């Protein structure tokens, strides 16, 4: 930029010549220069303001547009963050202890109709009735012709049925995806698994909820999407299958109307097999019976819900407590002269066993009188807490939704006569699972186990119930019941079965007892010198008819069935047949003198 001098010589000389003040020229030029500078500065400032305005406008419009976009569009997950977790949020599977599937899910379709979209209602109704024999053509047509806009036709379809319905080709017949619970083994572990049904239903999905058994007890856990790993049960599918087969055959041979078997690991409390017959198919769970005795329904879980007077099997608890308290040893003699009269009650034995028997022989011959005398010595004040410590006075903690309903029936007042009758298993009703857990607690070395249906790997460390010594002595006594007592048919070579029979008359619904209806129970443990498993077999109203007179005692009914179960199940459990150690023989020899 050309700079104008403040005092241009030509003008100064002209001014001097004409007598003007040359300083005026300088001042005029200074003023002009300042004016130019001011204009320039203003121009710059204006430029900055414009830039600022543009920046702010752009910034605000970007924020505004982003806001608008967020407000006006559908919210979606950021796609780059899509997880790799399983897409189907399914109910978790249930497996047995070796991972074999007991319950899983299958994707099927449900069928619904929107009658206002249908083109040929008559033809659709007749073809649907042909595909599904349980649907009636008239009913379908009547419902198609009513004013409803939506109706379910079938909750679950097989792929063949779906194709057949698809082939009808009516636009008003529509399918919705459904997750279906499948129990591939059918009836095998029906009472353990329970069953499921649909909860809230929509067209595109439906909730599957557990209605009974372990499905209901673990409903929350099975539905938790964060835990898709299968629920591992303690049940062994192979053993369960063998037990069910033998028990079913036994129930038929013994003409029983029901049967149950519980096989339990004595150290971990795991229930390896739990069978209750008659059973049902959990894939097609029957409706609960609204009339009649609920215990006759196949849905009734006899092993857990069925509380019965289990008879002489309870004598073991009286004997164990007497040994543990030091009141007696296996050879202590008790008077068994009958009948034992207490007030208006008379306690009798099945046979007359002579004037006196040792504790071992009281159990071996199953003397009510002898046991009652032991119980009188123990007293009710000590008997009740002992039975409570075995878990016999409360519902079992087993993980089935039916378990709380299997609450034992105990006398309101624990009088002396109650103490005496309870000692031989009358006046107290418990479920077979109670009995299994109590036997396991006594025979595993004397610590309490609680029954469980979940796989465990470590033994339970429960409270001590009886001493190690008592536990071993009881194992020896139970062995003798089988080797020379009431359960002689229960011997399985190589497995040293020990056990106690129990035959209890069934109570009439109106009071009193039936003469010809019994509950026969065999509570056994094997091998008895080092018990590993406890097996309880209970038959409901068995009659053995091979002899001249029908026989109902457990020794003739439940015991052979249990022996056959042990013969089949023990090898499957990996137990090798072995020769009993000498100690057991010694005990036999000494006490049979």
């Amino acid at each position, binding site marked *: 930029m050309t700079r104008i001098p403040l005092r241009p010589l030509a003008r100064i000389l002209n001014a001097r010549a004409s007598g003007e003040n040359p300083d005026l020229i300088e001042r005029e030029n200074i003023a002009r220069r300042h004016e130019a500078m001011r204009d320039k500065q203003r121009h710059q400032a204006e430029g900055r303001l414009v830039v600022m305005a543009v920046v702010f406008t752009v910034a605000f419009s970007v924020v505004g547009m982003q806001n608008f976009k967020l407000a006006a569009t559908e919210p979606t997950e950021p796609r780059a963050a899509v997880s*790799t977790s*399983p897409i189907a949020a399914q109910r978790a599977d249930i497996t047995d202890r070796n991972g*074999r*599937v007991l319950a899983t*899910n299958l994707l099927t379709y449900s069928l619904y109709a929107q009658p206002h979209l249908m083109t040929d209602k008559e033809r659709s109704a007749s073809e649907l009735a042909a595909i599904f024999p349980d649907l009636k053509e008239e009913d379908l047509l009547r419902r198609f012709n009513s004013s409803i806009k939506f109706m379910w036709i079938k909750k679950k379809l097989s792929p063949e049925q779906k194709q057949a319905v698809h082939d009808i080709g009516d636009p008003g017949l529509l399918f919705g995806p459904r997750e279906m619970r499948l129990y*591939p083994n059918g009836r095998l572990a029906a009472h353990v698994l329970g069953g499921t049904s649909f909860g809230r239903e929509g067209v595109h999905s439906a909730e599957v909820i557990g209605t009974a058994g372990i499905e209901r007890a673990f409903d929350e856990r099975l539905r938790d999407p964060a835990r898709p790993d299968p629920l591992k049960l303690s049940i062994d599918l192979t053993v369960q299958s063998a037990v069910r087969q033998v028990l079913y055959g036994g129930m038929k041979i013994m003409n029983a109307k029901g049967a149950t078997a519980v096989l339990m690991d004595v150290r971990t409390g795991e229930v390896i097999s739990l069978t209750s017959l008659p059973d049902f198919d959990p894939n097609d769970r029957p409706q609960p019976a609204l009339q009649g005795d609920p215990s006759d329904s196949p849905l009734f879980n006899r092993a857990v819900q069925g509380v019965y007077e289990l008879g002489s099997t309870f004598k073991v608890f009286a004997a164990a407590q007497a040994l543990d308290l030091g009141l007696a040893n296996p050879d202590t003699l008790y008077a068994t002269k009958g009948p034992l009269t207490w007030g208006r009650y008379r306690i009798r034995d099945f046979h007359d066993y002579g004037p006196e028997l040792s504790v071992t022989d009281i159990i071996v011959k199953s003397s009510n009188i002898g046991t009652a005398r032991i119980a009188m010595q123990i007293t009710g004040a000590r008997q009740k807490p002992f039975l409570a410590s075995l878990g016999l006075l409360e519902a079992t903690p087993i993980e089935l939704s039916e378990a709380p309903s299997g609450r034992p029936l105990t006398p309101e007042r624990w009088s002396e006569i109650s103490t005496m009758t309870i000692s031989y298993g009358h006046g107290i009703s418990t479920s077979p699972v109670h009995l299994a857990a109590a036997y396991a607690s006594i025979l595993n070395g004397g610590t309490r186990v609680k029954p469980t249906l979940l796989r465990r790997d470590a033994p339970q460390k429960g409270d001590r119930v009886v001493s190690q010594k008592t536990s071993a002595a009881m194992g020896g006594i139970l062995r003798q019941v089988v080797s020379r007592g009431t359960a002689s048919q229960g011997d399985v070579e190589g497995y040293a079965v020990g056990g106690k029979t129990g035959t209890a008359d069934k109570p009439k619904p109106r009071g009193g007892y039936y003469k010809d209806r019994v509950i026969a129970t065999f509570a056994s443990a094997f091998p008895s010198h080092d018990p590993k498993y406890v097996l309880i077999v209970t038959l409901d109203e068995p009659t053995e008819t091979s002899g001249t007179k029908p026989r109902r005692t457990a020794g003739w009914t439940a015991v052979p069935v249990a022996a056959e179960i042990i013969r089949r199940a023990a*090898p499957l459990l990996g137990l*090798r*047949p072995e020769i009993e150690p000498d100690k057991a023989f010694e005990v036999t020899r000494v006490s049979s003198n």
Partner: protein
Amino acid sequence: MRGLFYALSAIAVMGLAFWAYRENYRTQQSLRDVAALQSQIGDLREALAVQRAEWAYLNRPERLRELAELNWERLNLIPLSPDHFGDLQLVVFADEAPANLLPADEDEGDDAPAMAGLNVSDAVAVRGTLGGEAAR
């Protein structure tokens, strides 16, 4: 100099714009691939669940028992019973076996010791599995 700087900047901006454009479309393509793969994984999982269910259904003990009974003639399968357990004592070791049990052929007498050695190692392998069974 200044003109060159402007030109280079403009080229850089265009280059970056092209790069960003390409990356954007590559990302979108990758996301589409991931979505396709995930739906494929979902389908495969579903198929797997169906096959597992079918496996469980076809291997249910009831059916296997029926099959074993149907094929009794060929398979001679019976339920496992206590007398099916073997004992290591009953395994004949080659060095203990009487000579007539050894598969020695008179013409190939030289081979016999080698075969005996083979049998011993087989027996040891059997012992290993038996021990494993017993320990279990």
